[in-house]
């Protein structure tokens, strides 16, 4: 038998005989299965609920009676974001970001009803999902199984014996690494099966799922190499365990929490309230519709009059109030977009800054990669916000156009004093039905993966480092035995 295979086999046998290791692996696998099942059920329930709400909102919108179009602008519409299939694997920020937005004229509302805000602080302990199990728990279990993989033999004196019998250090290290990787594969298997299940039955995109499986395999391999290295260098198994536990606590728990604080300090972002005030201020500067002498609106009015070659707005073939509404909405939505982009840029800088902490913890890179590939990162949420805003603008402007083209200026001006005019400005239900429905377009898998590229690079760096650690383990074994 090949010496590498023999070492590997011996280690696997001793793992199988180690009651604690077996129990730990079995419990983790059970936990992964539970995580996958609840997470899939949770995503499906969420998707169902949001689809139902969307259908209800669509029915209500289309079923409005005859109304003045501007009433419909204020009645507004609700849109919901359905979580992507891979959210069942890694829900990312889905629990934090709101998933429904109320769309109305002149205003840009926030996405509301994120789960975390509706939960007790238990939500901040983490959620049991396949991603959580693989990122946080699996490395710790691997540490329990593997911390003694070399040092125990050193303590027992069998290491020297084996080397004396002609086993070379690279063979020994490769065999032990293989044994650790086998254990890691066992720990990762339920997650991989969950990914496969999502691709086959829930329509999850194949390429991102594949990349997720690969990235998690690399992540666990990094841990296996680290464990092997520490175990090869340690003089006592207790020292190895304590050191590995500290490293785990730093990588998985501590650094991920410290990094955001630094990112917030480096790139402060305004509160929603300040943005709201700033938009109102800028809007007044662009043109104040409440000021009868406002230069912007005076110029707008003149340009309309010139275009139709008339002297007074009353003589226009279209309803000037509708034109004003179109212009007002154009201006405010320009600002909404500008400020949303500013905020997005600031938040991207924050996230990039925090991702640099991957230099101190591979867990940060893994988490970032995972949610980006799964399409549950903040970028995906922003895409939803942007599409919701575009949809809001489309339907509001179509309604304003109806006001401009179907209603007469005369009726519109007297709608509050003349009951007949009030009746005439109400237009039929089929106008609402003619407006498009909201369809959220998820990013294509390629874009998802491209946004995960920086994190992938960090993982690759860590994987390279893992290779260096394995070489170092070999060298230190040679030295300690020689």
């Amino acid at each position, binding site marked *: 038998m090949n010496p590498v295979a023999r070492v590997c086999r011996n280690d696997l046998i001793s793992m199988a005989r180690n009651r*604690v290791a077996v129990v730990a692996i079995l419990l983790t696998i059970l*936990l992964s299965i539970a995580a996958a099942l609840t997470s899939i059920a949770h995503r499906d329930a969420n998707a169902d*609920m949001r689809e139902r*709400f969307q259908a209800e*909102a669509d029915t*209500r919108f289309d079923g409005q009676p005859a109304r003045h179009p501007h*009433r419909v602008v204020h009645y*507004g519409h*609700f849109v919901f974001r359905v979580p992507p299939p891979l959210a069942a694997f890694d829900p990312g*920020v889905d629990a*934090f970001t*709101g998933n*429904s937005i*109320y769309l109305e004229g002149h205003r840009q509302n*926030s996405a*509301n*009803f*994120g*789960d*975390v*805000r*509706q*939960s*007790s*602080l*238990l939500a*901040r*302990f*983490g*959620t*049991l999902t396949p991603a*959580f199990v693989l990122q946080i728990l699996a490395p710790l279990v691997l540490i*329990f199984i593997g911390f003694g993989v070399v040092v125990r033999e050193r303590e027992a004196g069998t290491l020297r014996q084996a080397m004396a019998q002609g086993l070379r250090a690279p063979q020994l290290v490769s065999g032990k690494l293989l044994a650790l990787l086998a254990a890691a594969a066992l720990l990762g298997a339920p997650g991989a099966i969950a990914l496969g299940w999502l691709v086959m039955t829930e329509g999850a995109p194949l390429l991102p799922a594949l990349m997720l499986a690969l990235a998690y395999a690399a992540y666990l391999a990094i841990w296996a190499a680290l464990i092997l290295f520490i175990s090869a260098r340690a003089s006592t198994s*207790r020292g190895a365990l304590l050191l590995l*536990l*500290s490293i785990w606590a730093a990588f998985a*728990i*501590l650094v991920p*929490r*410290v*990094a*955001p*604080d630094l*990112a*917030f300090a480096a790139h*402060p*972002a305004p*509160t*929603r*309230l300040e943005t*709201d*005030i*700033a938009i109102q*201020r800028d809007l007044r500067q662009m043109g104040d519709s*409440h*000021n009868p002498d406002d230069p912007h609106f005076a110029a707008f009015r003149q340009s309309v009059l010139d275009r139709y070659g008339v002297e007074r707005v009353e003589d226009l073939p279209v309803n000037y109030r509708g034109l004003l509404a179109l212009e007002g909405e154009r201006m405010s939505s320009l600002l909404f977009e500008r400020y949303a982009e500013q905020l997005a840029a600031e938040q991207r800088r*924050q*996230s990039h800054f925090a991702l640099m902490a991957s230099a101190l913890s591979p867990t940060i890179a893994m*988490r970032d990669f995972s949610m980006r590939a799964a399409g549950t*990162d903040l970028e995906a949420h922003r895409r939803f916000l942007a599409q919701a805003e575009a949809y809001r603008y489309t339907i509001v402007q179509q309604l304003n156009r109806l006001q401009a083209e179907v209603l007469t200026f005369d009726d519109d001006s007297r709608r509050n004093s003349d009951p007949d005019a009030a009746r005439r400005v109400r237009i039929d239900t089929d106008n609402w039905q003619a407006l498009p429905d909201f369809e959220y377009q998820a990013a294509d898998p390629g874009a998802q993966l491209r946004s995960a590229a920086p994190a992938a690079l960090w993982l690759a760096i860590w994987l390279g480092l893992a290779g260096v650690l394995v070489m170092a383990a070999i060298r230190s074994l040679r030295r300690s035995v020689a």
Partner: protein
Amino acid sequence: MTLWRHEWRLLTRQRLAVVSLLLLAVLSIAAVIAGLAEVHRQHQVIDRIQPQQQADEAAIARWVSVEGDAGNAAYYTAHATWDSPSAMAFAALGQRDVAPYVLRVRALGLEGQLQESESYNAELALPGRFDWAFVLTYLMPIFLIGLLHDSRSSEREAGRAQMLTVMARSPRWLWGRRVILRVGLAWLAVALPLAIGAIAAEAAPAQVAPFLLISLVYALIWTLLILLIARATRASVANAAMLSALWLVITLIVPTLALLAINDRHPVRQGVELTLAQREEVHAGWDRPKEDTMAAFVRLYPEWADLAEVESGFHWKWYYAFQHLGDVAVAPQVATYRQALLARDAETRLAGWVLPAVGVQYALHRLARTDLRAQLDYQDEIRRFHEQLRRYYYPYVFNERPFREADFANAPRWTDRPDN
């Protein structure tokens, strides 16, 4: 006393123990500084918005007061509210990063406005905050495990246990001193930075004391657990593995399972439902006979009975009446939603009796007023403020009294909670 000094000398010779204690102190100091910085930032935000808010109100006052239409004043003015962090918020930052602590409301239907979110970076909120509560709940137990798991087994492994037990006047006290010294120092490493931070935050001693007490009790609970497991004659390394597995189960795994169970037992889709319902109610107001709306409103505000008649097609008093009736109509849904949230919170407290990590987190965040209930309290304050606002505008709207610059200045102002 000499025995204590002797024990101290022993401790200082163990490099691992000394480094662990120092590291724990450094982490606690860092967490306190991070918490203080975050609270300082929140105070700054609250200060920073005041002049912006004033400028915004002034700009609205400028054009509204020309015609003096109170309806416009009430419609366009957004009134600022804020929820200042409590003195001890620095120790447990809690949910203040995911829920707004500054919010503007208008005198229109309120319930939808209360659900507005803050535009925070969710990717950074995901791992949770680095604050003192985190150091205490998650990290201190790990350090205690490191310090205590081998207090007896290491002597046994070194072959000294037998001799020490025979030589000591009271063997129980021998181990007792060792454990007390280590736990005491670990607790001090965590608690002292907090006490100093509390002085910096100008917290009253009565506010700090519960934090210190809770941290002591938590340290003792873990000490007990560790000693119980370390009692068995096992190798140090097996103790360490067993204890860290225990830590994993009770601070990470079981809480996530508890969250699943609790959220499953109390679904909260009512949140979305109530905003949908409120919109329906408010907009149905446009189509309902005006007399019905005004009659319903007058039942709640009889003082306006004489002025409740609406003649023209549109009048602000009718508009504000149906805005408010929208809130009244969804009151049952609001109550159900709130009940579900409170039930989630209450069951988390119950879970805290079994899970020390959850119990400590719950207690600290309740004391710091940074939890879900603090969020709901803030919303209740806003509801009261909104009522004041509406009552301020109604006389102008109903009497068609002109609304001038001075009336803007006299509008109700948000005042911070008295205990902040």
